[in-house]
């Protein structure tokens, strides 16, 4: 904080309260937050979903999203009070002195206009530059942000440019009027780790070069550690702690902050394949697959999952890891190759499988919201598989449901008759697990089960899965893009890229060099909780050798 102590205050938020509209009434979602930002300072806002970080980001521009309103407090930007300013006055600040970088660049660029026309809109609107000047400036910014073909890329339409490049183009657009403040609202959350790095590096450089103040909103601690000078931790609309990045990482004061930091410490001892000649529960052999009319998504995939073991399938989006799960469950019949269950070939289509074969393999989904029927009671959701496979009825069924609820650590008396929308994200995910367990399977596919959850909740789910595995001897196929999760729960790892298995083996082997180059790239791209990690990495790799440029 000391670095900016003598600089003037740019943004001062005092006792900000914001209400959200829900169920016909206004309920507080931000409950009195203070914030001071000096010129050139980068503030990291961090918190779980629902902490209100994004709402505060919008409020810093004097903007209240639909269904929210600023009820109390003051927001002073460079001497101007935004809560009482007219909409025209506030509008005059946006784009010119305060700019915004949204989470999804693909959705936030207007598909009907070229990138450069959207870029020059604000400078032209404010008559800061002439069109040609603005375009030249855009090209220069593109070059600084290390976009390929900086003189040409602006003349493309958004859908013609990749996600990581769009995110950088949006950062360039935010810079177009050289604002005093930029709000970055989770700018890399939607990106793969290898793409994330280049965007992070680009954002950090440009903010440094122009000495722009920024509010960087994210839920990822390691990311914010690279970007911010100071960090503010939020919980449910209230501030928990505020300190400089170093202090926050080394010596957090509050229990909640400490618990956030401690999350990734959960680690389970690695198990190895059973010594006896027991068969794998699931064995995928030489599978090729494609969606109708499309190109091959899976190319000669083989791996095996032994009883009681957790196999993590790792890869970035588009690597084919979820498609592999669809082949195993029979949703997508393979073009060639087969899936064996305990040495017995499964029919390729799920419609042709017997009830018992279907029972063997259960799924747990990423989005608990869409995985549970919102119009079914919890007792029906969990009870149906038990009734369907085991023929339980009446009292026996009720007892089984209670048993399952106990197993996932939810109180049967409280949850038996409720509906999914009344539950929290973690509770929903637990119900999803109970539904899978109700079938009494030997093998469960966990498809990114923790990636939509907050870290503490995710930790709870991982521990629960681990306990269940020990008690019930389950085998897991754990699909994930998050290497931290792999580290904590996997026994074996399968790394996939572009529909192929790049490398597979026991976890310890995978995490110790030498790696396959792609595994290496993946591993080194995962942000670490060290504020100098990005700097060190860039020095190692060289500025021009990151992300897409670092082809394998």
């Amino acid at each position, binding site marked *: 904080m000391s670095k900016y102590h003598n600089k003037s205050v740019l943004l001062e938020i005092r006792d900000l309260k914001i209400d959200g*509209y829900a169920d*016909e009434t206004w309920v507080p979602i931000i409950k009195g937050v203070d914030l001071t930002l000096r010129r050139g300072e980068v503030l990291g806002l961090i918190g779980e979903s629902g902490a209100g970080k994004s709402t505060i980001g919008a409020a810093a521009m004097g903007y209240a999203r*639909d*269904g929210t309103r600023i009820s109390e407090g003051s927001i002073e930007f460079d001497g101007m009070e935004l809560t009482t300013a007219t909409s025209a006055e506030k509008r005059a600040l946006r784009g010119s002195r305060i700019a915004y970088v949204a989470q999804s660049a693909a959705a936030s660029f207007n598909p009907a206009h070229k990138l450069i026309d959207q870029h020059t809109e604000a400078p032209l609107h404010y008559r800061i530059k002439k069109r040609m000047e603005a375009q030249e400036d855009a090209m220069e910014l593109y070059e600084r942000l290390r976009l390929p073909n900086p003189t040409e890329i602006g003349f493309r339409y958004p859908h013609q440019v990749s996600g990581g490049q769009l995110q950088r183009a949006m950062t360039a657009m935010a810079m177009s009027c050289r604002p005093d403040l930029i709000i970055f609202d989770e700018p890399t959350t939607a990106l793969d780790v290898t793409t994330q790095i280049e965007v992070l590096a680009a954002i950090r450089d440009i903010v440094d070069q122009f000495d722009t103040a920024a509010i960087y909103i994210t839920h990822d601690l390691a990311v914010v550690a690279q970007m911010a000078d100071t960090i503010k931790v939020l919980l449910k609309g209230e501030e928990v702690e505020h300190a400089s990045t170093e202090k926050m990482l080394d010596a957090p004061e509050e229990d909640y902050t400490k618990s956030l930091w401690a999350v990734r410490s959960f680690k389970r001892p690695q198990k190895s394949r059973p010594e006896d000649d027991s068969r794998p529960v699931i064995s995928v052999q030489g599978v090729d697959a494609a969606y109708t009319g499309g190109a091959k998504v899976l190319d000669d995939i083989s791996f095996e999952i032994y009883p009681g073991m957790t196999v993590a399938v790792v890869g970035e989006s588009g690597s084919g890891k979820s498609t592999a799960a669809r082949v195993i*469950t*029979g*949703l997508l019949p393979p073009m060639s190759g087969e899936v064996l269950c305990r040495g017995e070939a499964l029919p390729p289509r*799920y419609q042709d*499988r017997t*009830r018992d074969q*279907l029972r063997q393999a*259960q*799924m747990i*989904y990423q*989005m608990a919201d*869409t*995985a*549970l*029927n*919102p*119009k*079914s009671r919890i007792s029906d959701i969990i009870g*149906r*598989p038990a009734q*369907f*496979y085991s023929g339980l009825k009446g009292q026996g069924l009720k007892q089984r449901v209670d048993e399952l609820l106990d197993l996932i650590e939810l109180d049967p008396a409280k949850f038996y008759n409720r509906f999914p929308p009344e539950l929290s994200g973690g509770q929903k995910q637990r119900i999803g697990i109970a*539904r899978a367990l109700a*079938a009494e399977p030997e093998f469960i596919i966990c498809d990114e089960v923790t990636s939509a959850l907050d870290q503490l909740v995710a930790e709870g789910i991982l521990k629960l899965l681990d306990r269940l595995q020990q008690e019930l001897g389950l085998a897991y196929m754990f699909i994930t893009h998050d290497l931290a999760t792999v580290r904590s729960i996997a026994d074996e790892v399968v790394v996939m890229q572009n529909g192929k298995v790049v490398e597979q083996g026991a976890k310890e082997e995978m995490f110790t060099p030498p790696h396959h180059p792609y595994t290496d790239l993946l591993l080194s791209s995962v942000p670490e909780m060290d504020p100098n990690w990005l700097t060190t990495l860039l020095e190692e790799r060289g500025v021009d050798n990151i992300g897409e440029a670092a082809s394998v």
Partner: protein
Amino acid sequence: MSMFVIGYYAALITASCIAAYFQNRKAFMLLFSLTLVSFVLGIVGGVPALRGVTIFAGILALAAGTSYAFREFLIQVCSPAIAKELRTAPLTAAFGMFVIFTYAIAGIFAPWIAPFDQSEVIASAFEPPNEDMLLGADQLGRDMFSRIIFGARNSVGLALVATVLAFVIGALAGLYSAVKGGWLDQLSGRVADVIMSVPSLIFALLILSIFGTNLWVIVVVVAIIYSPRVFRLTRAVAGNVVVMDYVEAARLRGEGDWHLIRKEILPNSTAPLIAEFGLEFCFVFLLIAGLSFLGLGIQPPTADWGSMVRENATLISFGDITPLIPAAAIALLTVAVNFVVDWMLFRSSGLKEQ
């Protein structure tokens, strides 16, 4: 200047002042701009124009008052869950519900409400209204009022039957196509496309010219014409539900199609389907009214609003509004249903930007 005009302006200005005093900006702007508009209207149209404005405002106020009272009544009568929903209903929706309620009463109890039978000749042709006949006689000397009451039963009943049939055909096909996918989905989609590529009225005329104007022919034809609309909507709504993970989970469990439809898909698509039922009813009702107006709907002597308009149309050229009454009855019901549907669509679309 008549007392009426003085009273008129005095009332408006007083009301404006009251609104201004209580800082009700919207009401003030409305009242005061009405005052200003009235100056112009008064100069151009004289007292009758101002009288017209007063009558119009009175009718509007009466309708608003009725709607408000009816909404309160419904809130008191209904269960807490429905009452909570009803509280969000705008006055237009309450008005719609009130009108639908009135029509339902008229239709169900028609023989008790109507003073005469629908085909009973009691006077000479086109006799003007008198003590016996509230709205006068029609072209054959039958009581207009009784025929309008019976029309509520016949016209609305026929449209309702046709809508239900269209809905059953369309919704079932839509749900099955969404669940099954593949060639069945493709085929039903194409069939729907073909039916929808013939304009509905033209389609109806073609079939009616062949099979004659039998009531069942009308019901079946209209149901077939409008089922593709229901099909498309159901298919789209169910299509959004079918891709949900909980449906996939149920499929992988080995559940049959009927279970998927009944337990997983239908409960999650009711809101748009109910709204669509209202919309569909309006279309069907208007189509059947149009056919009747062309003389191809319900055949005489059965009372029917569409044909009543046609039969009495000659009166229009004498400046008599009698033929407009059954036409207005049609319009009023359709407006009412549309008001309710509008509110339901707004509710089911969530409170996103509107």
